[in-house]
Each structure stands twice: as structure tokens, then as C-alpha cells.
């Protein structure tokens, strides 16, 4: 089959945006995405000049794209209901039942926690799996891969984190002060997820951040002797497994209109609002370990000596 002529190929490549300096078709915002005009090919006086012209044209196009997106959405915003209005369409019977029926049905003082962990629990289940899949992908990418021949882990160039400047005593002193407070505050936020603001994610993130601070200040060796990669995997396995099983139980009973025998407890007490507390604890645990795993994977491709 002889090749179709060169210019057909170049025209099609240009339409497809396969040029080496690809200006891929931008996803125009409104429903009639116009074809973008081709970057004007100036007389190539010198490669440097052409590069500059191309950069200029490229920036011009990006400004045009940015303006069209913003203008279209601004016009849309101008038609939308007024900000903070009383009788906006969003304030309908859905919002009233979430607030008024919340104490009897979910039993959480914090209506937002009640809403995300009981009324619309399927989203939150999906979303904790988003975090799990993201961690799996980061592990796939950054975990030190075993050298095929020798089988040894080729660990990225590990300059010694600990070799901070000699005067790091200020840093280590303040870290020694901050870390316990951070972890305590994180635990408080997780446990009181259904009573006050916060919940599994924010509490877990706070604990994760303070763990990272601790690992930076006092060195990860002592901590990672206990918290190896295997334990991380098993922690996230147990936490997510209990989360899924609890939710399966509550969905199954809900769908088949069975009475789920989970006590809601007295509103305001710690052990109230049915499943929300255990779920918050599970999520908090997973998020904390995940944040630490992110840090250690990014900095040294795995826990401890990288396994």
C-alpha cells in the first residue's frame, strides 16, 4: 500500500495536534467548540526568532482560551440565583429534611457529618477509595523498584536527611513541642467529627502532618521500625475493609427496608450517631497513614530502608 502523499499526512497531523510543538485542541467551554486558528508560521528568520514568535502566539492563544472560558461562565453566573438569597432553588425540601430530620435519623450534631456519612454515604465510600487508588498509583510510580537482575532495591540517591545544619536544635525543640499537640488535636478532631466541625479527613490530615513533622525533626528510624510498608498496607486494608463492611450492612438493611439495629445514642454524647464515629475513626486512620506514606514515598521511595 503506497503511503498517501506527505501533505495529507502533515494536514492530518496538524489537525490531530501531533506536531512536535503540539498545540492540542483546547476543550472549548461552550457547546460549539470553534476550531482554533493555526499558530501563524512567521518567516523563519532564525530558529531563535521563530521560537520566540511561537511562544508569543502560544501565549496569545492561551489568553484567548482563558478569556472565552471566563466570559462564558461569567454570563452564566449573571443568570444564576442571587448569592445568599432565602428562596433559592437549592433551599428546598431536601435541605429542610436534612436539618430537621437529622437528629432522629442520623443522630449527629454536626449536620454535614451526618449528611456525608449517612444520607449520601455512597459518595463518601467512593471518595475514600479515590484516596486508596491514588496511594496505590503513587506506590506503583515511586516505590523503589527491585532491580530485575540482582533483585536488590535500587533506592534513590539517599542523602542523609538527618544531616541538617548543626543549629537545628530550634527546629527540633519546636517540633518536640508541636508534634504531641498536633497528634492530640488530630485525635480530638476525629473523635468529635459528629459533634463539632472536622471529621475523619481533616483529623487524619492533621495527624499525618504532625507525623511528617516528627519524622523530619527526630529522624524516621525509630518510628519506621514499627511503621514499615507491610504494616501500612495492613492498616489501610483493615480500615477500608471495616468501612466497606459497615456500609454494606447499612445499605443492605436500608434497601430491603429492614430495621438496622444500630443505636443512635443520645445526641451530644461521644458514643452517639450510630455508625458515624467508627467510620470517622477508620477514615482518620487511613488518611493519617496515607499522608505519611505520601511523604516517605516522595522523599525516599518507601519506608525505612525503602522496602
Amino acid at each position, binding site marked *: 500500500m503506497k503511503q*498517501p502523499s506527505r501533505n*495529507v499526512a502533515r494536514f492530518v497531523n496538524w489537525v490531530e495536534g501531533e506536531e512536535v510543538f503540539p498545540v492540542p485542541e483546547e476543550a472549548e467551554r461552550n*457547546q460549539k467548540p470553534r476550531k482554533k486558528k493555526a499558530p501563524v508560521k512567521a518567516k523563519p528568520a532564525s530558529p531563535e526568532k521563530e521560537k520566540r514568535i511561537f511562544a508569543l502566539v502560544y501565549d496569545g492563544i492561551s489568553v484567548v482560551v482563558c478569556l472565552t472560558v471566563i466570559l462564558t461562565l461569567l454570563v*452564566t453566573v449573571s443568570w444564576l440565583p442571587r448569592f445568599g438569597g432565602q428562596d*433559592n432553588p437549592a433551599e428546598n425540601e431536601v435541605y429542610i*429534611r436534612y436539618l430537621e430530620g437529622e437528629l432522629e*435519623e442520623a443522630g449527629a450534631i454536626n449536620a454535614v457529618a451526618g449528611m456525608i456519612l449517612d*444520607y449520601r454515604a*455512597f459518595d463518601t465510600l467512593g471518595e475514600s477509595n479515590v484516596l486508596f487508588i491514588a496511594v496505590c498509583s503513587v506506590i506503583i510510580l515511586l516505590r523503589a523498584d527491585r532491580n530485575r537482575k540482582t533483585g536488590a532495591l535500587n533506592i534513590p540517591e539517599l542523602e542523609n536527611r538527618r544531616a541538617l545544619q548543626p543549629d537545628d536544635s530550634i527546629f527540633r525543640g519546636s517540633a518536640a513541642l508541636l508534634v504531641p499537640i498536633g497528634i492530640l488535636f488530630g485525635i480530638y478532631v476525629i473523635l468529635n467529627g459528629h459533634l463539632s466541625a472536622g471529621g475523619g479527613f481533616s483529623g487524619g490530615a492533621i495527624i499525618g502532618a504532625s507525623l511528617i513533622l516528627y519524622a523530619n525533626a527526630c529522624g524516621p528510624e525509630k518510628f519506621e521500625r514499627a511503621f514499615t510498608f507491610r504494616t501500612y498496607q495492613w492498616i489501610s486494608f483493615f480500615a477500608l475493609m471495616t468501612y466497606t463492611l459497615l456500609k454494606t450492612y447499612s445499605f443492605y438493611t436500608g434497601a430491603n427496608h429492614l430495621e438496622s439495629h444500630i443505636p443512635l445514642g443520645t445526641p451530644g454524647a461521644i458514643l452517639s450517631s450510630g455508625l458515624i464515629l467508627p467510620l470517622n475513626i477508620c477514615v482518620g486512620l487511613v488518611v493519617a497513614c496515607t499522608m505519611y506514606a505520601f511523604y516517605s514515598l516522595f522523599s525516599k521511595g518507601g519506608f525505612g530502608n525503602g522496602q
Partner: protein
Amino acid sequence: MNLVQNFPFFCIMLYLAGGVTCCVLTPKASRAVCIGLNLLVTALMAAALAFTVRSGESYVYLMGHFPAPWGNEIRIGPLETLMGTAFPLVMTLTLLGGMDHIFEDVEEDKINLYFTVVNLLMVSMLALVLTNDIFTGYVFVEINTIASCALVMLKYKSGKALVATTRYLIMSLLGSGLFLIGIIILYNITGHLLMEPMREKIHELYLSGNYAFPLTVTVGLFAVGLSLKSALWPFSAWLPDAHASATAASSGILSGLVIKSYMILLLKIFYRVLGMEVVLSTGVLNVLFVFGIGAMLFGSLHALQERDIKRMLAYSSVAQAGYIFAGFGLGTAEGVLAGCIQILVHAVTKPMLFSAAGGFMTVSGGSRQFSDLHGAGRRDILSGIAFTVGALSMIGIPLFAGFATKLVLTRASLATAGWKCVAALSAIVLSTVLNALYYIPAVALLFDKREAVHISGVKAQPSAVYVLSLTVFMALNFFVGLRSSLLTCILEAGLNVFS
């Protein structure tokens, strides 16, 4: 609420649990769990399919104790269960077909993560097909995006895979960004997130005429966002790199299944959320139709020039996606039916082609260029036959799966008026000839006597699993080709109760 109605819910939860367990198991154990899970889900969904087809209408399954406008729910009808059965079945066959590639391309201690990603990809596809709530749709679109990007990049030390993943992820994120802002505008003007209550509100707005402009912009956002993710032609610059540089099994899964779940979500949003009259009034279907026609032509034109077998198959996926969108773009129920049939036909054919391409690569020293693949079909006779069956089905020869689509699409385009009918018919004829123009020389080249000197004589010893998967794929292809009337009436029943 008898037991069968719970099966789709069990499938979603099984996949979630399976995904989590696979990441702590050994590679062999996680493979067993993944394959077993897929087979179990196929069986469960087949039972659910039998139930819904017998009962003939779709029922709502509450995810939690609270009915429609408050709690989440999934809606199960003949169309959803048919897709729910087809997807895991094709997934199992593709995994079996590409199994030895997976164990060769992916590193030793990351294979169990591969199966974790596969399980979570399946849960997101099932959820996208079943969900009755838009924001749940968005969350599972995100899982789908990350999982499919993870599938692409799982090639050991391959720079191309990384670059392809980045471009794919960036374009997908743009798509989901637009999709999310569409959801938010809809929530803002209707106050609901569940599909049915939102439909009534939109109907009222459409009649009363206020918020008309935001409604049009939302339809545009959904159309552009989801067609960006399902690789409709002008936005498909990322697809060839992504699907070509992945391992054989992953590219089969990506082309066959992943881009289809977004199309079904778009269909669901047009049918169930916005309602057909709103969508028709905005004319976005004509734009999708024109892009579909463009995809059919430019996709095939590009595949014609490609000298790399997997990029050729990837570009032919772009062309087949064009068929589906041309079907949807016709705007009639028959057009949508043609689109759905093409979804099933392509899901059955393309993974077989990619597995066969994988088989050719092992036999010709791992190279993908056609110059090295001379006579590969003779060295690995089973992949050769499978590739020929797939190629003929793509061209649309009767008795194969592709013929059903051509027939229903021509009849559907005939039913529409004027320019659409002429454009669709001419595009179908032209793209069939273009398909023949690049598939037939490829098949002829694969059975060519003159083999590249350094590869000739390498006889393939395919593993039993590979043989099984390709034979079952071919049987499935023949089944869809011969019994397409069975599939059509299930899909018709599904579409009637779809909105």
C-alpha cells in the same frame, strides 16, 4: 425485594472489598482473587439481567435508608444489567489473554497493585453504569480516571508509557473539571442531585423559560467534558499514545471498556437528567453527530498511515467511538440503539485484537512495527486467526459482530431526515472502505511468507490461558454476530425504561 435485586449492589461492594484485599496479597493470589471476582460478578449480573428482562422495567435500589431526593440510589434496568454482564466478562477474557504480558511487563512486587487497580476500575465502571445520582457519578469518574491512568503507566521502565499517562491524565482532568462545573450549575438552578427529581425541575424550567442560558451552557459542558474523556475525535489526541504504549491487556481494557462507561454516563445524563426535548432544543446532538462523522473519517485516515500495529488499533478505536457518537447524534431512539449495539460490539472485538497484537509481539521479538511483524500470523496461528476474525468483524462482514452495527446504524440514519441521513450513510460507506484499506493489508502482511530474517522460525507456545481466552472471544464474536436480534430487543427494552 427478592434476593436477585440485590445482586448489582453486591457486585459493587464485592469489587470494593476485592480491590482492597488484592493490594495485600501475593501476585499469584491477587490474580486468582481478581479473575474469580470477575467471573462471580458476571454470573451475578447475568442473573440480574434475566430478572430485569423478565420483569421488563427498571427498579430503584436505595443506597441507605432514605428515598429519592435525600439518599443515594442506583437504578437497575435491562440496559444497565446487560452492560454490567458484558463488562466483567470482557475484562476476564482480556486479563486472561494478556496474562503472560502482565507478569512480564509489570514489576514483580507491583503485580498485586495491578489487580487492585483493575478491581477499582471495574467498580467505577459498574457504578457509572448503575448510578442514579450525578455527584456519585463524578466521584466514580475520578476513580475511573486515576485507575485507567494507573493501568497505562504500569509498564516496567517505559518512558513512553509515562508521557502518555501524563497527557491522558491532564486531558481527563480537564474533562472532569468541566463535568463537575456542569453538575454544580445544575445543582444551583434545580436544588437536586438525584436524576429523577432533577428531571422534573429541569422540565419546569424548560417550560417556564427562566435559567435558559445556564441550562444550555450546562448541556454544552456535559457534552464537551464527557466527549473529552471518551476520546471523541477533536479531543482524541491523547488516545493513540495512551492505548498503544500500555501492556496488551491494559490497552484492550482501555479501548474496549473504559471509554464506553463515559459514553453510557453521557447517554444517561441526556436521557434521564436533561430529558431529550431539552437536549434537542440546544442542538448539541448535531455537534456530537458532526464530531462522530469526523472521528469515523479522521480516525480511519490516521490508522491508514500508522506503521505500528497497536497505534493502528488505537486510531481504529477513535473511529469506532465516532460510530457510537454518530449513533447518539442522530437524536432518534433507533440511533441511540445503534450506538449501544456498537458499544457492545466494540467491547467484544477490540480487546481480542489487542490480545492478538500482544501475541504477535511476543513472537516477533517484542517489536510493534509492521516491518518486523511479517509472517507473525503464521508463527502464532491462533493469534493470526483471532486477528483476522476481529479485523473482518471491524470491517462489518456478516456473521461477525460488526455487521449488526452497520445494519442498525444504516437503518437508523435512514429514518432521520435530510442532511444527517446523507452524511451518516456516506460516512459509513467511506469509513468501511477505509477500515478495509488498513485492516486487510495488515492481515495480508501478517500471513506473508517473507518473514524478517532475524525472527523467522520462532514458533509460539501460547499458554493454555491465552488459547482459552482467544477462542472464547471468537465464540463471543460469532454469538453477537448471529444473535444480535437478542441483544437488540434487550437494549430496546432497556432504552424504553431508561428515562
